[in-house]
């Protein structure tokens, strides 16, 4: 098991290295002096000169990359070109909110998807199955930001049950924060259920056809035991991989939902810094989300053998 984990870690290193290289080169691709680009139009010559020395821009490019990589590994992602705040701290403070929304939503979506996917596959072609499949296909066609807008229109504007604009930090007003987070979480949960349900249903159908399921039934086990003990673990493995991919993608990518609900999360930070051309922050966000994505998937790969007995660790 330890060798397996070690091997997976080793395989992730070239990927992470290329990720870092791509993030580094991205800003270098912009025509002009990188220090000028990073600090923006109105920067003073002194500020540009000091950033030039800080970034080591007079050195050769590989040396610059090595310096930058070393600093990033140490957690120093530079400072925002606009507010001067350290990028690392900025990202972490914004990420908390995003992580809470994403973890709750993906957890709920997985629960719903597993339940309905399993039931739909168990009674394939039944009315329940068609309803589940129809809902999943419909949800797949609804953009999350529009779903959010419609929910906001119904529950915020028309019924006025929930607040429409703004956000209160959890530390200031716990109940208020929960009220602001209900709709984003519901929206994201619904949006992510579609793919997960389809995946769970199709892998359950595959597993139900296997001989050992027939055998378990022939032994006289109750359908409940067959489904929960024998079908579920094998059918869940592919869905788990998808959950990992979804988590990795969403940790960096709920910008649209944060925009609809005016939540100050990581996605919104990224969009705002792109619009403001705050390149140190853009770089930091990209590096952070991509690394997180690789790490989350690594974790899923490591957990996979625990769920799928067919995958032997060797």
């Amino acid at each position, binding site marked *: 098991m330890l060798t397996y984990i070690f091997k997976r870690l080793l395989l992730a290193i070239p990927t992470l290295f290329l990720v870092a290289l791509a993030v580094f080169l991205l800003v270098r691709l912009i025509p002009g002096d990188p220090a000028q680009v990073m600090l923006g139009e109105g920067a003073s010559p002194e500020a540009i000169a000091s950033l030039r020395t800080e970034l080591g821009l007079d050195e050769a490019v590989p040396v610059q990359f090595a310096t930058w990589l070393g600093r990033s590994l140490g957690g120093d992602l530079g400072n925002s070109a606009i507010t001067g705040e350290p990028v690392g701290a900025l990202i972490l403070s914004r990420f908390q909110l995003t992580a809470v929304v994403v973890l709750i939503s993906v957890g709920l979506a997985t629960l719903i998807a597993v339940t309905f996917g399993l039931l739909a596959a168990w009674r394939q072609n039944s009315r329940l199955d068609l309803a589940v499949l129809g809902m999943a296909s419909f949800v797949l066609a609804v953009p999350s930001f529009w779903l959010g807008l419609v929910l906001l*229109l119904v529950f915020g504007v028309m019924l006025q049950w929930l607040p429409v604009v703004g956000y209160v930090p959890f530390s200031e007003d716990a109940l208020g924060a929960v009220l602001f987070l209900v709709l984003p979480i519901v929206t994201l949960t619904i949006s992510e259920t579609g793919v997960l349900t389809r995946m769970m249903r199709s892998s359950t159908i595959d597993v139900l056809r296997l001989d050992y399921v027939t055998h378990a039934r022939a032994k006289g086990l109750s359908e409940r035991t067959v489904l929960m003990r024998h079908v579920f673990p094998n059918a869940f493995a592919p869905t788990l991989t998808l959950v990992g991919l979804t988590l990795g993608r969403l940790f960096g990518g709920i910008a*649209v939902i944060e925009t609809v609900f005016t939540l100050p999360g990581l996605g919104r930070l*990224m969009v705002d810094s792109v619009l403001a051309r705050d390149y140190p922050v853009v770089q930091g966000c990209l590096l952070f989300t991509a690394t997180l994505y690789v790490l989350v998937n690594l974790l899923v790969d490591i957990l996979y053998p625990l769920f799928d007995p067919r995958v032997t660790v060797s």
Partner: protein
Amino acid sequence: MRGRAHQYLGFGLVGLLLLVILTGFVWLPYDPLAIDLDNVLAPPSWAHWLGTDQFGRDVAARAMLGARISAFIALQTVALTVLAGLIVGLASGFLRGWTDRILMTFSDALLAFPGILLALSLIAVLGQSRHSIVIALSIAYLPSVVRVVRAAALSIREREYVEASRAAGDGPLYTVWRYVLPNALPPVLIIATSLFGWVVLSESALSFLGVGVPAPAPTWGNMLSSARPYMASASWLSIAPGLCIVATLLGINMLGDALRDRLDPRNAA
């Protein structure tokens, strides 16, 4: 398996989209960019089927032009991604060895960036324009296409007819062109259909975030984005463009499912 109705609905919705786009070339109810300050935020009526926006522009006309713009961007992106994906995927799957390993490491690194964030930062570098969206989304979706092509190429290269072609002394390029490429096309066609849907969705998301198609050109995404402040007073502005996206994606996805049922040999049983 999923019944004919499903397929017909898919064809119907995609046909409707095509009809709307083609009609838009010869007739639009109003000039989609014409500002009419006497008719600001007018609710749907006989004169303006879908109402007017905060500048008095006709929503129906804008949605029709938006369909054309989004569909063109999606077509260009799909064409570019599939072409690049075929080249990289065939090279990777047919040559295997080091070429494969290096290309796959790059592909995995690219896959590590959340698609929309990657597109966002590429647009930040390239500048905001329709071409930037096409290039940025092509790069973001390239790894998914590469994977499909590579998997197909890996299995096709072991077939007898490829071996026969090699034994007959055909060069590798000829073998790939004559035997591997045509047999890899069905899965590519399936992913191209899905890709069209993903791109429509991503482009609308980018436009919604304010980094997509620049104003005043209308797309469904930036129509929704500019509708956000008027949600309480003019809800129709938030409804119509969203329904357009949903109808388009439903049609494309159903068409994709139908295609998959037909072309995927695993579903033959």
